């Protein structure tokens, strides 16, 4: 049933010199779900994301994304695959010399035979879908707030209508209202565009609000995956502390109220 899986990782080992980040890591992401990846600082959440999208080469293991073996794919297959996923980096990673609209147009320029006016209109559409006002289109990344940069980064990640989106700490550094809006945005876009979302986060509210399943990284592997409810009954001390700590309790109450 490999078709049901957007991402399939088996026996992944990532090492930096003698320091090992992942040892024998297995993870499945199903199509259409929003998977939240949590873990303490330094457990290699971002490294995992970078490894899946091919920015980092693992020492061992298999990674298959949307049915393509990432580590063994030839250049053409990789290019095709790269058009089917979008990545939003932590601070947006926008090209600082381009305006927001030009940033979103970058991936669209790869589409053969797309006239300029349609490209511009589609970029504007993505910008507006990411919840940015029209005035933001002509602005440069340095003129935007952190939240707006994240939205612009999301608009660029969505430019080619990907099947799969990677989000690295989408709500880090946002105020609670902005973070909640961003959560709703992710949920809405995921529903209406049929996205699979791989989301690295620290934000318990985000986990409650948007994630279908949660994967906990600890001890250099995926310790446990499951719904938020299932997480609450896990015995592992770190997982217990994470999902039963004071902040977790507050987030749970919030989610229960709304």
């Amino acid at each position: 049933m490999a078709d049901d899986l957007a991402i399939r990782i088996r026996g992944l080992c990532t090492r930096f010199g003698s320091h090992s980040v992942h040892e024998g890591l297995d993870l499945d992401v199903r199509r259409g779900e929003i998977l939240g990846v949590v873990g303490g600082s330094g457990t290699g959440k971002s490294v995992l994301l970078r490894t899946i999208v091919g920015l980092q080469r693992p020492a061992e293991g298999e990674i298959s994304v949307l049915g393509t073996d990432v580590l063994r794919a030839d250049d053409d297959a990789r290019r095709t695959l790269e058009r089917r996923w979008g990545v939003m980096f932590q601070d947006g990673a926008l090209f600082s010399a381009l305006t927001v609209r030009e940033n979103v147009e970058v991936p669209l320029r790869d589409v053969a035979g797309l006239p300029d006016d349609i490209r511009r209109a589609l970029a504007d559409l993505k910008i507006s879908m990411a919840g940015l006002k029209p005035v933001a289109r002509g602005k440069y990344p340095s003129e935007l707030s952190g939240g707006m940069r994240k939205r612009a980064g999301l608009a660029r990640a969505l430019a080619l209508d990907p099947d799969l989106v990677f989000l690295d700490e989408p709500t880090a550094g946002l105020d609670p209202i902005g973070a909640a809006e961003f959560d709703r945005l992710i949920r809405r876009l995921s529903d209406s565009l049929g996205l699979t979302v791989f989301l690295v986060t620290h934000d318990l509210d985000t986990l409650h609000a948007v994630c279908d399943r949660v994967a906990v990284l600890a001890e250099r592997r995926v310790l446990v995956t499951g719904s938020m409810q299932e997480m609450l009954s896990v015995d592992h001390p770190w997982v217990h502390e994470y999902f039963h700590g004071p902040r977790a309790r507050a987030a749970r109450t919030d989610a229960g109220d709304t």
Partner: protein
Amino acid sequence: MAAEGGAPELRLDEAGEGGRVLHLGGRLTLAQVTTLRARLGEVPGGADLAVDLAQVEALDTAGAWALARLAARIEAAGHGVTWQGADADHAALLETVTQSMPDAGPAEAGRVRLRDLLERLGRTSVEGVKFLMELLAMLGLFTDRLLRLLLRPRDFRLTSLVHHCHEVGVKAVPIVALMAFLIGVVLAFQGSAQLRQFGAEVFVVDLIAISILRELGILLTAIIVAGRTASAFTAAIGSMKMREEVDAMRTLGLDPAQVLFVPRILALLVMLPILGLIANVAGLFGGALMSWIELGISPAMFQTRLVEGTAVNHVLVGMSKAPVFALIIGVVGCHAGMKVEGNAESLGRMTSNAVVTAIFAVIVADAAFSVFYAQIGV
């Protein structure tokens, strides 16, 4: 999102149940959006329209955008559009896209008129004047902080000064010496070819000595230092500014002018005369060597002729320019660094600006010196 697949299919049924029905089918995606937009543009807008999406195989935001445009056009004409037969995913997508349809952006700029050109000219002139004022302000800031240091020498950052002296001066010695040596060689070679026609070969010594000691030694040194140091200042200060390190410094009670500018500019003030001196020696050495090879003027004869024929004030005139050049290079480099904004592009632009401005200003100052010394007859 595959690029293959059928073109979008359109069939307009003028007499369907309850009015006009537009039957759509095939793939309505980014790859087909150009065709789709053109075909949808042909649908007349004069009446209500029902759009049947039952046969649509694939729909993405690009396809939905084209449909939403059609709907907006018909609704703008005062008629209604209804969607039929869309599956849940397509309906949700259509809904989202319709809600976020961007309004038309601001109109593109019209053609350039004379008034715009005049305005641009005015802006450029005002900015030029402002730029000069800012350089003066930077020079004033440097002087002020230097005077304060005289009152409170404990604040002086000796380690930093030594570090910058090493970066700016010691590391530049090889390139400066080599450059001056080659200039000496070239002068001797070219000079001897010309002077030989008049049998005045021995004057090649005066030619080399005066041009190197008075002008070329220090000028070319300053140009090289402007190229390597002004850019380094701009890049270092600029990247600190980009990452808000300069702001952090201010909040910690550190004065960026004291910490960043004073050691750098002071290091240039100390090292540029020394580099100029090294250039002079290397230039004379190159000249002497070439005169020996090309004209048979022995080093001893060169030395005698040099000491007899060249007044020491040529050296003083040359060296007197060094502090001014040092100030120009330092002030331009630091100022450009502080003008860097939050993006990588601006860092690159300001770095190259700093080099161009510094070299240009050094040459202008040199010309001013020439006129000045000629007038007072030194």
